[in-house]
């Protein structure tokens, strides 16, 4: 699992590459827990190369969501593979999180 952060003006884009499980979730948690992430207006999560997510990975996003909302930082997922979106959907997380098909829509969200 690789997490690459790409800052740009008021937006931080996180590119996720690989499989997010109970072993690798700590990498993402470390990235989302950085205090300066709350200085951005938006955090976009590029899921194009995210090929797998388990409850441990979902839990990392859930555990930071309130903190982001309190700081008025918008968290938006895009480019999500169907099999990964299916996992969000099964838990009902698609109703709690902003998931859009493309980067253009994520930027506009």
């Amino acid at each position: 699992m690789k997490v690459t952060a790409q800052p740009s003006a008021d937006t931080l884009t996180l590119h996720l590459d690989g499989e997010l499980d109970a072993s690798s979730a700590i990498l993402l948690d470390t990235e989302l827990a950085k205090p300066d992430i709350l200085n951005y207006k938006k955090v976009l999560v590029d899921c194009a190369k995210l090929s797998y997510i388990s409850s441990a990975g979902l839990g990392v996003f859930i555990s930071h969501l309130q903190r982001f909302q309190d700081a008025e930082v918008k968290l938006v997922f895009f480019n999500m593979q169907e099999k990964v979106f299916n996992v969000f959907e099964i838990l009902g997380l698609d109703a709690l999180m902003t998931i859009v098909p493309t980067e253009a829509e994520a930027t506009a969200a």
Partner: protein
Amino acid sequence: MSATLRITCSRSNLQKVRDFVREHLVEEKLSAVTVNQVVLAVDEVVANFIIHANGEDESQFLDLELGVSPHRLDVEIVDQGETIFLPPSHQAPDLREYVRQGRKGGMGMTLVHRLMDDVSFFARDNHTVCHLSKRLP
């Protein structure tokens, strides 16, 4: 078709478990979504056994057996540790409350129950066994 795998109780072995399940489903001509659902259910149960039942003690191990017959898949996961680990009865989580509390865990077994048609945990010969099954198209 039936296949087996033995792993030690380290979360670094979760990748090996997922690769094992994928490898043995590749010939079944299932959709990527269905394969991922089975992989995820097995990964969640194995992670629970590794982390919660065995405290990541690498001297302990788990045995997996995966069987595919026409229109049905069965997976048995046996925790070779001697502590019986039967999860409490399953209740759907209140996700809005999880968000409010900043909770990280507590969704794994919900996923397993929603992904598979049958989920059972029981004790056999002083070991904990999890049996998962799913109807296949």
